C-alpha cells in the first residue's frame, strides 16, 4: 500500500473527478464568501449554491456515455457514477430550495449550511465513482463529517444536538467496522482495487471460505448497512431524522443513502462478486428485517417526521431486495428507485417544511387535521407523494417497486418479493393515516400559516413532476438506469 500515493499521482485524470472538482471549487468560494457576508444573511449563499448545483449538473450530464477513468483505476466516472451524481444533485438542489425560508424561520440563517451540503454532495460523488476501497472510504468520510455537523446544526436546540451527537457517535463506530473490514479484505486479497480484488477471488476460489474474507465482508457490510439505515443498524435513524433540521432529514434520507448504496453495490458486485452466495444470503435476512422493522414500527408513530424516518428504513429494505436479486433488473431497479425515492421523499419533506411552524410543533397527525381544505393544492401534492411512497400506480414509487420486485422474481426470490409486497401492504396503513388526518378530520385548532415561499413551492412542483413523470412514462429513466450498469 505504500506505493499507493505514487501510483495515483502517475495516473492523474482530472476529467474523471470533474463534477466533484467543480462542486468543491464552488464550495470553497462559498466558504470564503460566507466569511465576508454579514451575519444573518444566508439567501445569497443559497442562490450561489443552487448555481453550483446546476453547473455541476451540466458538467455531470456531459460525462454521460463518455466514461473517464483515472488515479490508477481508483476513480471511474462511468454512467453508473453519473446516474448517481444526478441523484445526489437532485437531492441537494431540492434541499437547498426548501432550506432558506426554513433556516430564517428557525433563527439560523447561516451560509455555512449550504457549504456543508455542497461538500456532502461531493463526498457522495466520490463514493459513487470510487473503484477502490480507499476512494470509497474517503468519500464516505467527507460525506459523514458534513452530515454530522448538519444534523446538529441548530446548536440551540436539544433535539438537534441529540441528533448530531447520536449520529456522530454511532457513525464513528460504524466507520471503524468499515475500516476493519477493508483491512481484512486487503489482508486476504492483497489489493484495495475492486477490479483486481474481483480477479483475485475468481482466481483463488479458496479465498471465499477464508474466515478473514467472510469476517471482512461482514464488517464492511455492517459499515454500509449502518449508513443506509438497515435493521438492525437503524437505531440512530429515528432520533436523528426527527431531531435534525427538516431539510437535512430529507437530504439524509435521499442523497447520502443513495451514496451508500452506490458504494456498496460497486464493492459487492465488482470486488466481491465471487462471494455472491455469501452476501446474498446475508442481505436476504437483512432486507426482510429492515422492511419489517421499518414498517411495523412506523405504525406506532404519531409524529409525521418520525413516521417518515421509519418509512425511510423500510424503503432501504425494498432497495436491498434489488441487491439480493443481483441481476441487471434488480440493480438498475435500485438506481431507478433511488431517483424516484429522492423525488417523493424530498417532496413530502418539503410539504412538512411548509406546514411546520417554528420549533416544528405541529408535525403530528393532529397538526395535519383538516390540512386538505386549508391548502388544497399543497395537500394534493402531499397525497401524490404519499401514494408514491405506498407504491400505488401511476406514480414513480410504484414503477420503482415493480422494477425491483421484478428483478427479485426473475432471480428466483419469489418469497422475498412476496414479503416485500406484504410489507408494502402494511405501509399503506400509516401513509393512509396521514391522509385521513388531512382530509377526513376537522382541524383541531387554528394554526398560523407560514406563507408559501416560492423556492419551497418550486421544490414541491419539481418533485411532483418527477414523481408523475417517472410513474407514467418511466421509459426514459429506465433506459438510462439500464445503461448505467458497470
Amino acid at each position, binding site marked *: 500500500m505504500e506505493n499507493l500515493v505514487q501510483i495515483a499521482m502517475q495516473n492523474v485524470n482530472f476529467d474523471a473527478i470533474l463534477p466533484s472538482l467543480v462542486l468543491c471549487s464552488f464550495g470553497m468560494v462559498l466558504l470564503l464568501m460566507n466569511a465576508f457576508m454579514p451575519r444573518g444573511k444566508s439567501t445569497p449563499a443559497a442562490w450561489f449554491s443552487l448555481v453550483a448545483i446546476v453547473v455541476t449538473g451540466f458538467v455531470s450530464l456531459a460525462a454521460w456515455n463518455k466514461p473517464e477513468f483515472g488515479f490508477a483505476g481508483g476513480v471511474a466516472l462511468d454512467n453508473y457514477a453519473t446516474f448517481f451524481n444526478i441523484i445526489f444533485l437532485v437531492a441537494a438542489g431540492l434541499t437547498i430550495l426548501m432550506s432558506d425560508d426554513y433556516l430564517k424561520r428557525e433563527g439560523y440563517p447561516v451560509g455555512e449550511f449550504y457549504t456543508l451540503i455542497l461538500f456532502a454532495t461531493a463526498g457522495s460523488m466520490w463514493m459513487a465513482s470510487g473503484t477502490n476501497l480507499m476512494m470509497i472510504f474517503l468519500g464516505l468520510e467527507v460525506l459523514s463529517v458534513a452530515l454530522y455537523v448538519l444534523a446538529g446544526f441548530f446548536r440551540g436546540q436539544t433535539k438537534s444536538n441529540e441528533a448530531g451527537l447520536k449520529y456522530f457517535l454511532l457513525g464513528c463506530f460504524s466507520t471503524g467496522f468499515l475500516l476493519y473490514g477493508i483491512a481484512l479484505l486487503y489482508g486476504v486479497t492483497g489489493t484495495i482495487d475492486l477490479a483486481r480484488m474481483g480477479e483475485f477471488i475468481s482466481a483463488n476460489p479458496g479465498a471465499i471460505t477464508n474466515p478473514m474474507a467472510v469476517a471482512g465482508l461482514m464488517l464492511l457490510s455492517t459499515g454500509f448497512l449502518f449508513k443506509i439505515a438497515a435493521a438492525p443498524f437503524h437505531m440512530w435513524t429515528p432520533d436523528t431524522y426527527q431531531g435534525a433540521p427538516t431539510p437535512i432529514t430529507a437530504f439524509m434520507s435521499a442523497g447520502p443513502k443513495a451514496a451508500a448504496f452506490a458504494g456498496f453495490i460497486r464493492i459487492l458486485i465488482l470486488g466481491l462478486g465471487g462471494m455472491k452466495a455469501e452476501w446474498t444470503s446475508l442481505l436476504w435476512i437483512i432486507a426482510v428485517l429492515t422492511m419489517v422493522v421499518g414498517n411495523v414500527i412506523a405504525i406506532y408513530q404519531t409524529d409525521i417526521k418520525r413516521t417518515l424516518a421509519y418509512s425511510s428504513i423500510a424503503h432501504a429494505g425494498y432497495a436491498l431486495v434489488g441487491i439480493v436479486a443481483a441481476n*441487471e433488473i434488480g440493480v438498475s431497479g435500485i438506481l431507478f428507485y433511488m431517483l424516484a425515492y429522492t423525488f417523493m421523499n424530498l417532496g413530502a419533506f418539503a410539504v412538512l417544511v411548509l406546514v411546520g411552524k417554528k420549533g416544528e410543533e405541529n408535525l403530528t397527525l393532529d397538526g395535519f387535521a383538516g390540512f386538505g381544505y386549508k391548502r388544497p393544492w399543497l395537500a394534493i401534492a402531499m397525497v401524490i407523494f404519499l401514494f408514491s411512497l405506498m407504491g400505488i400506480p401511476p406514480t414513480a414509487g410504484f414503477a420503482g417497486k*415493480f422494477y425491483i*420486485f421484478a428483478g427479485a422474481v426473475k432471480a428466483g426470490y419469489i418469497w422475498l418479493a412476496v414479503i416485500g409486497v406484504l410489507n408494502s401492504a402494511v405501509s399503506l*396503513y400509516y401513509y393512509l393515516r396521514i391522509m385521513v388526518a388531512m*382530509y377526513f378530520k376537522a382541524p383541531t385548532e387554528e394554526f398560523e400559516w407560514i406563507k408559501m415561499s416560492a423556492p419551497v413551492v418550486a421544490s414541491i412542483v419539481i418533485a411532483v413532476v418527477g414523481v408523475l413523470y417517472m410513474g407514467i412514462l418511466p421509459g426514459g429513466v429506465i433506459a438510462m438506469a439500464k445503461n448505467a450498469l458497470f
Partner: protein
Amino acid sequence: MQNLLSWMTFFPLVGLAILLFMPGAKENALKVWTLVVTIITFMISLPLAFDDVFKTSAAMHYTEFSKWISIGDFFQMNYNVGVDGISLWLVMLTTFIMPIAVLSTWQAVDKNVKGFMAMLLLLETAMLGAFVSIDLFLFYIFWELMLIPMYFLIGIWGGKNRIYAAVKFFLYTAVGSLLMLVAIIYVYYYGVKTGIATDGFSIVEFYKLGIPGNLQTWLFLAFAFSFAIKVPMFPLHTWLPDAHTEAPTAGSVILAAVLLKMGTYGYVRFAIPLFPEAMQTFTPLLATLAVIGIIYGALVAMMQDDVKKLVAYSSVSHLGFVMLGVFAMNLQGMAGGMLQMINHGISTGALFLIVGFLYERRHTREINEFGGLAKKMPIFATIFMIMTFSSIGLPGTNGFVGEFLAILGAFESELRWYAVVATTGVIFAAVYMLWMYQRVMFGECNNPKNADLKDLSAREITLMVPLLVFVFWIGVYPNTFFDKMNPALENLIKQVKSQQVAIVMPASTGEYTLGNPRLTHPGMPPQGHQ
C-alpha cells in the same frame, strides 16, 4: 371513431382537467359539467353496443396497441386495449350508470362539490380502463387506481364511521391486489422464460401459456384471493357492508354497480382462463364459499334494521349467484352469471338510489322510522316495488333471467347440489326484500315525521326511468345481450375446457409440453388480437 376506447376511457380525465380550473363556489355549474362529461362518455361508448361484430366473433375488437414501458430487454409493458363480448356490457354498464350517479348527487352533496366530482371522473376513467385493458400490467394500473377515488369518496363524503370504512376498504382491496402483482410478474416471467409470451403482458398470449399444475395453484390463489376480496366472497366480505353503509349514495351506486363487478370480471377474464387446471381443483371450495355467501348474505340481510345495510348484504348474496354461475363453466351458467352482473348493477344500483331518496328526505335509514309511505309517495312506491321485484328475481324482470340461468347452469354441471342449496337463497331474498318493503311502505303512517313527505321530483324520476327500462328489457328480451356475449363466452369455455383436459393428460406422463397442440387445433376459433 378512431381510438374509440381511448377516447372513452380518458374523456372523463379531460373533463376532470377542465373541472379543476372551474370556480369551486359555483356548485351547480360543477355538477352540470360533470353530468355533461359523463353523458358524452356514454355517447362515445354507444357505438359499441350497436356493433353487430360481437354476435359472430369472440375476438377482441376496437383494439389499440402501442409500446409503453420497457425494462431492459426483459419487461415490456404495452398500452393494449380492446373489447369483446365479455367486457362489452360491463363497459356499457359503467358509462350508463355514471350519469345517473352524478345526477343523484344534485341535492345529496353540498360539501366540497368540486372534489367530489373530480373523484367521480377519476373513478370512471379507472373503471373503464380496467375493463378494456387486455394487457395484464395495464389492468393492474387501472385496478389500483380505482382505489384512490373510492377511498376519498367514502372517507370525505361518507357517514359517521366513514374513516373506519374507508381505511378498511382500502386495506382489504390493496392487500389482495399486491399479492396479485407478484403473481402477475411471475406469470410474465414464466411466459418469457418459455418463449411463449412475446407480446408484453398481453392476456391473449398468456392464455396459451399452459403453466404446470403445481405452479398454477399458487398463481391462481394469488389472483383468486385478490378478486374474491373485490367480489366480495365469504369470508372476505366484511369490508362491503361498512363501505356501502358509510359511502355517499353516488359512491354506493358505483360501488355496487361497477366496482364489485371487477372481482367477478377478474375471475372470468383472468383467474379462470389463465389457470384452468387450478380452477378445476378449487371449484368445489370456491363454489362452497359462493353458496355460503348466498345464504349467509341473505340471512344477515334479513336481520338488518338499516335499509342500506340490508341492500349491502343482499349484494353479498347476489354476487354469490354470479360466482356460482361462472364456476359452472358451461354456457348457461356463464351467460347467466355475466347477465346477473349487469342485473345486479341495475337493480342494486337503483335500490341504493332509492335508499338515498329516503335518506335525503328523512336523514335516517332505520326501517322502524318508516311505515305507510306508499300512500304519501305513490310514484316512489311503484318504482321501489319494481326494483324490489327485480332484486328478488320475479319473472318478467331482469333478475329472474340472470339468476335462473346461473342456477340452471350450475345444476347442469357437477355443481348440481350446490345449485340446489343456492336456490333457497332466492326464497330468502324474497323474504328479506318483501318484508323490508312491507315495513317501509305499507301499514299506517304513524310517525308524524313522515306525514308530509314529498313524492319523487322530476329529476329523481328522470334518473330512475333508464334503470326501469332495462329492468324490463333484460327481463323480457335478454337476447339483445346474450347474442353479443355468447360467442366470447363459448370461446372462453372451450379454451378453458380444452386446457383442463389437455393438462391432465401430459401430467400422467410427468412432463409438460410447452407448445400445447390442443390450443391451436383447427376447431378453435382464432385468438383475436389486432
